[in-house]
């Protein structure tokens, strides 16, 4: 897990995702092409059901697209086996989920240390990096607290720090401001932008909130599975 510096961040090329078949066929993504450079922060905006989460699922190596190619860092995702997809997620991808998605039993520092533990064991290096990230998101003082003792904004900052733990090439944020008020939402988005620039992660944030886009390097609109 060395710092990943790659020439390519995330590349989606003609990606189509379909569910069901025949009359029940749903096209969640329709010929989506998107390239995100390392350190670039792209916001994808669209209403509910426009395919934003499907985009993240495909870009995050959670599912294979029906058609099209996905490249994460220098790895071609298409045709990769499930086991290798999991490894890709462990080593190359960071997720920021809605409302943090923090297991209730883990104190803040352990939320971060879970990531290296999934890859084997927690090294002294990983511990130091966790502390560095906690400082970067301003939660050093709350490293021992559990999620229920944190505010919504703090939870989301933990989620962001955890997403950075594996030094990801690609950082994906799924409606990270959904549970937050205006001021905290802006703080989180700014922090996300800052961290993606600083750590060179190709970052995609999906949101339905059009007022949060000032920090984005690029804004892409999504409707009915197509990018506009």
């Amino acid at each position, binding site marked *: 897990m060395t710092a990943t510096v790659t020439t390519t961040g995330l590349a989606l090329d003609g990606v189509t995702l379909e569910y069901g078949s025949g009359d029940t066929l749903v096209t969640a993504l329709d010929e989506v092409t998107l390239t995100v450079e390392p350190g670039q922060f792209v916001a994808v905006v669209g209403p509910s059901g426009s395919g934003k989460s499907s985009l993240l699922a495909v870009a995050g190596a959670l599912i294979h697209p029906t058609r099209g190619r996905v490249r994460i860092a220098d790895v071609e995702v298409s045709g990769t086996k499930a086991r290798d997809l999991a*490894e890709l997620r*462990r080593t190359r991808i960071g997720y920021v989920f809605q409302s943090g998605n923090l*297991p209730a*039993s*883990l104190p803040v520092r*352990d939320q971060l240390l*879970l990531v290296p*533990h999934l890859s084997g064991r927690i090294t002294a290096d990983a511990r130091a990096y966790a502390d560095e990230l906690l400082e970067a998101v301003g939660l050093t003082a709350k490293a021992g607290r559990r999620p229920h003792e944190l505010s919504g904004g703090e939870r989301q900052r933990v989620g962001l720090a955890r997403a950075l733990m594996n030094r990801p090439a690609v950082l994906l944020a*799924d409606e990270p401001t959904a549970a937050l008020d205006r001021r905290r939402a802006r703080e989180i988005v700014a922090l996300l932008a800052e961290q993606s620039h600083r750590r060179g992660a190709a970052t995609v944030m999906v949101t339905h909130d059009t007022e949060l886009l000032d920090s984005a390097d690029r804004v892409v609109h999504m409707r009915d599975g197509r990018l506009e």
Partner: protein
Amino acid sequence: MFLALRDLRFARGRFALMGIVVGLIAVLAVLLTGLANGLVNDGVSALRTMPATHLAFEPGVQGNLFSRSSVDPAEARRWSQVPGVREATPYGNTLAHAKEAHTGKDVDIAVFGVEPGSFLAPEPDTGRPLEAGTDGVLVSRKLTDEGIKVGDTLVVERSEVRLPVVGTVGDASYGHVAGVYAPLKTWQRIQYGLPGEPPAAAFEVATAIALDGEPGSGAPDAQVLSVEESYGHSPGYTAEQSTMKMIQFFLYVISMFVVGAFFVVWTVQRKDEIALVRALGGSVGYLVRDAVAQVLVVLVSATVAGAALGAGLVALIMSTAPAMPIALVPGPIVTAMALLIALGVLGAVAALRKITSTDPLLALGGNR
């Protein structure tokens, strides 16, 4: 065990409740093994401690062989010639009532007739051994617990045979009745059942021929049972053992389902966490190892604590209520613990299926 331990600590109330249930089941399981062994002891300890390996009963007799079989003790000589048999000696077994001559105390006894000096004649713990030509008997622990001691005399009802107690032996019960070892001739007079000197034919009777060694070919016509097989012919033994077995069986089944149901509910509760770990690239193997470790921590600690408590209870019962048929035997306790743990893990396997079927996509909220 990164998540497992933290979840255990965080949800300690829920896990404690579960642990208490498993622990109480372990207490019950240990009490039941104690009771089962106590009942075996009380039922057939006289057969268990018998130095013979096989018993040759009368051919053709069915049902309770110990009360119905009748053989000629002279056959022992022929049996000792049979290949495989090292020694053979007649054995008598009959239930009787007796009174202690001085105190008038009533006792139920199982009288075992053995030839003094034969391999069946027990070594007394205290007092003297059986002696031919006398009616002196050895009494077992159940009678000494009731206050019968060397020097007392038991008077058998009906036959009025007087049995001076000359020595004592340890546990030797038969059908939950205290055993008394008597010389074969004395036993034959009790078996005859009437006062006065019995006819000569009464002395040509024994219950079976006890054999040391498994008889080969050329054996006389007989029903030969190993001593263990003969347990089932002692009164109540089969019924008691099958009752105990059934109770234990259901206890294990209940425990399996309790543990299984708990971990299924628990796993459903942590579905989000499982989806998260899988989305972060954790393997199914990682989650399963974690969950199994958690199940084992709960089961082993609860079972060990429960078994220790159960063993303590059995010891307490043994010391305060010696009349209760209960025994502390380590082997079956360890078996019961292993069964509880193994079946608990088996029950929890149902929960593991929920782990493997959890879709990492669940971690992405809302619309997709």
